[in-house]
């Protein structure tokens, strides 16, 4: 077992509401390991309506 810190920067899918964000974020984190502790730590909206980008910080179990 190994713990790693990771920061993911992911485009927020336009058809995904905040109410459904939790499961989607966990699915994205599981690509890299088993999420132990995580949070969306920033949401950056583009000025040209190109959608938003999520910053997710996590500690994962590998």
């Amino acid at each position, binding site marked *: 077992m*190994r*713990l790693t810190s990771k920061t993911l920067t992911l485009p927020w899918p336009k058809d995904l509401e905040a109410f459904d964000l*939790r*499961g989607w974020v966990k699915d994205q984190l599981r690509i890299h390991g088993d999420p132990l*502790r995580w949070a969306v730590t*920033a949401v950056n909206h583009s000025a040209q309506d190109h959608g938003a980008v999520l910053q997710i910080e996590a*500690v994962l179990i590998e």
Partner: protein
Amino acid sequence: MSEGLDLGSPLPTLMVVPTGIGCAIGGYAGDALPSARLLAAASGCLITHPNVMNGASLYWKDHRIRYVEGYGLDRFAAGDWALRSVRQQRIGLLLDAGIEPELRQRHLQVADGCRATLGIEIGPVVTSDVPLGVHLGLGQSGASWGTLDRPDALLRAGERLKANGATAIAVVARFPDDQGSDALEAYRHGSGVDALAGAEAVISHLLVRHLQIPCAHAPALSALPLDPQLDPRAAGEELGYTFLACVLVGLSQAPALVQSSAAKPSDLMADDLGVLVVPEGALGGEAVLACLERKVPVISVANPSVLQVTSTVLGVESEVLQAGSYAEAAGLVLALREGVALAALRRPLPVLKELD
């Protein structure tokens, strides 16, 4: 708990102040505790976590407050686990092999003091087979995070405690000493992030995830030199040699964590939650997103931190109630508990509209 609501009965309220994000209230040594006491009085039932309740040598007991570690809190909010009240936990003490003998003795004496003076059931004691190797870190956001070199050793020691009768675990890990860094000085003067908090949360999350029993962490550190400019919010950490007493008190009657599928009617479930109270910039954590998902009312409180994940950036501003302070949030909780329409408390009050 879902059946048979009486007006004025407790409104189970979840209070989250994420660890290690530098909240003006709750970013220091248990300094959200007064707000938690107020919310507990307003709601009649408050579920919150060690970062809110732990003030090192300082603590507060309130039968209306449920002390639930962050990983367990996330599972509860997501509906995976239920909370079961217990009269008393038997707290196993897990000590990091990296703690020096004198500092280790200080912790054992605190545990003995809590047994003798407070009547808390403590034991057995287990030392990890190798030093845990705590590392501190800061994320891009400025929030504190951290990792362990030997999570396997932590879990082995936790398994031994549980196998020998512990129903909860207080874990003490040796944290790197930090004598005089700018970050520590900023924290002690009331303007920085708690650099230890992120790693502390990782340690307790690992144990709770693995053992499904209440756990909480106290860091072992060398005493700091006297600082005459100390911020009152950090003062709780300067009263003694350890941060362990509050952890033992909190765990002593922490609710047991049970699978929702095995819950009894008297257990507290996510479906029972009446409202969540959270700092306005910290809506990106798992418990908060789970509450949004489950349509639990959310109150966001003005409580500045390094994060800006607000209801506006998440596009849920119409779903989230705003409070300028925890005192205002307590008023909103009380209104929800008493069935007072929140719109009636604010002006302007729009006229009724008839459906088309």
